């Protein structure tokens, strides 16, 4: 693991008096105490990172992407920020919205050079960089990432699409994002993770602050190569009357671990967490989610669905924590899985921890085989086997996909889901 540490100090580091210095120093100190997780740790019981520890990863250069059109969402007018091997490619990016009275969309590096106030105010404010080892590693090592700050009373129509590409063999990248939705604002953000060539270790960390009355929809598309490893930390703080949704779609990748933490630190909030994972070969995808209900009158809804083919493994661990003060919380959590073969595995653990006494909460988990009876029924009506399987799998995925509120994006995800069946 020392390979991953302190390889670079491209931006903001100890002694440079930059805006990020303090946070970086905190992360560095934290790394002295945080242990690299093993399967003995409860949160990593089903996901081993041994293979990561034993691999030598190297930093990569800023290269030109030759497959950008494949990675973009067709027919979606969007602000597109392209990163290759963790470096911002200004040349390949397209920022449509330049009015800084409405929004700042910037690479971290540029924001740092501009002495962006919000960057200094919010970077590291979730505290994850001192609590969680991969966020700490990211904080120390990141080369660049994205800052988005939406101003008060602003609706941003065009989505912001951040495309993180790796190109090369065993490349390490630490994309770092900070999104701040100002009061009464509205924005949609997409992060996608792609392998253009070879393999990578992507250690992504994203902090999201949703201020009063704001709405933020976040979509994460994971589609890296099967030789790649990704750890993706997302930490969200919601204030009063906010709506936040996150949809995580994993259609490819070797080993993927998602840590999603949402602090619902306000009243009358709505939080939605959706996930879809379509696995094959020996892929391993682990979704850990944590919803922290701190205040009253909030609603959270979680639905994660997976299809495991071949010898793949899925892990779902979703926790909803309802504090004593968080009365009138409605929290629903569901995880549904289909195992396509006898060798595929799912570890599913939905958890509720409730200290308030006036709440409505439920959780559930189901795992089943592919429905052969339904397949025969469709075929007996004239639908060929491939189309029938596709129809059934699409149907299974539909209640997650129907929550994607950008039609062009939904189409892309559906195409990816279908492709992952073959």
């Amino acid at each position: 693991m020392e390979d991953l540490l302190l390889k670079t100090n491209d931006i903001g580091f100890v002694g440079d008096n930059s805006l990020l210095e303090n946070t970086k120093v905190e992360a560095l100190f934290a790394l002295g105490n945080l242990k690299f997780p093993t399967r003995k740790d409860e949160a990593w019981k089903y996901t081993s990172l041994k293979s990561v520890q034993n691999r030598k990863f190297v930093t990569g250069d800023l290269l030109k992407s030759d497959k950008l059109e494949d990675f973009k969402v067709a027919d979606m007018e969007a602000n597109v920020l392209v990163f290759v091997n963790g470096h911002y490619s200004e040349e390949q990016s397209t920022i449509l919205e330049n009015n800084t009275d409405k929004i700042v969309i910037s690479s971290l590096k540029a924001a740092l050079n501009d002495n962006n106030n919000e960057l200094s105010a919010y970077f590291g404010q979730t505290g994850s960089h001192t609590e969680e080892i991969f966020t700490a590693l990211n904080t120390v090592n990141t080369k660049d990432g994205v800052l988005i700050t939406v101003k008060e009373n602003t609706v941003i129509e065009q989505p912001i699409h951040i495309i993180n590409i790796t190109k090369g063999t065993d490349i390490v990248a630490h994309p770092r994002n900070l999104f701040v939705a100002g009061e009464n604002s509205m924005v949609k953000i997409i992060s996608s993770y792609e392998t253009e060539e070879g393999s990578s270790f992507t250690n992504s960390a994203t902090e999201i602050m949703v201020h009063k009355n704001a709405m933020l929809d976040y979509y994460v598309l994971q589609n890296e190569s099967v030789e790649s490893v990704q750890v993706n930390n997302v930490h969200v703080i919601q204030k009063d009357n906010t709506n936040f949704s996150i949809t995580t779609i994993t259609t490819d990748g070797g080993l993927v671990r998602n840590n999603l933490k949402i602090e619902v630190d306000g009243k009358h909030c709505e939080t939605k967490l959706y996930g879809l994972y379509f696995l094959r070969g020996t892929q391993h995808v682990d979704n850990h989610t944590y919803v922290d209900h701190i205040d009253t009158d909030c609603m959270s809804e979680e639905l994660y669905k997976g299809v495991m083919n071949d010898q793949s493994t899925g892990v779902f661990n979703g926790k909803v924590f309802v504090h004593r003060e968080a009365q009138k919380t409605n929290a629903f959590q569901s995880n549904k899985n289909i195992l396509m073969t006898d060798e595929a595995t799912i570890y599913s653990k939905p958890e509720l921890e409730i200290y308030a006494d006036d709440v409505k909460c439920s959780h559930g988990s189901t795992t089943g085989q592919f429905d052969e009876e339904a397949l025969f029924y469709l075929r007996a009506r004239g639908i060929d086997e491939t189309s029938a399987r596709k129809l059934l799998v699409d149907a299974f995925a539909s209640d997650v996909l129907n929550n994607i509120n950008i039609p062009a994006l939904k189409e892309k995800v559906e195409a990816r889901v279908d492709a992952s069946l073959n």
Partner: protein
Amino acid sequence: MLKITDLKAKVEDKVILRGINLEVKLGEIHAIMGPNGSGKSTLASVLAGKDSYEAEGTVEFLGQDLLDLDPEERAALGVFLAFQYPVEIPGVSNMNFLKTAINSIRKQKGQDPMVAKEFLARVKEKSALVELDAALNSRSVNEGFSGGEKKRNEIFQMAMLEPKLGILDETDSGLDIDALRIVANGVNTLKNEDNAFIIITHYQRLLDYIIPDFVHVLYNGKIIKSGDKELAKELEAKGYDWLKEEAEAV
């Protein structure tokens, strides 16, 4: 049109059909009756192409051996099985399902997809035939349907697909008298000189509404007696035991 010769079938070494011979001509209705476990539903499943059965013999249908074909190919050729237990498919709307089915069959026949207007007109006409609430079409296939609605949905699908051979597998079981009448009316309306039906049933009562040309009794994987509609009435009155004894005495 359909000629079944020495059809045998087993599932996991358990022999269920022990040599069925049956010929069905266009314009005919055949009823297959028999006690529980005689192999009636297996016969229906084997004809439709369920692959959990190992079948041998020949099933000649419009010049092809059905046993060589996939279920979807049989459907395209005009075989339709009304399921005894219609499957619920959450997330697939009844309409989308039907449209996909019709167009898959048309594609296999080298025809263009049905235009939306024609499709909708046909949906309207055929759902009225089985008195199926139009609202059900926007719901997922069979999900949350009552028992009677599921069976009527089967007949509705049959009406939409207009098969050459309709096989009704205990469509009458669990139906109240009104639903039974609706189902029978559907079949009688669809029946013409250019198609045929095999009605599998436990009870004679459906045959009061759908008059069969032939009645066959299936027992222990074989047809042990064939006759006309009077045979069904005799079975209703006397039960199956006399036939079982007759069969075992041979």
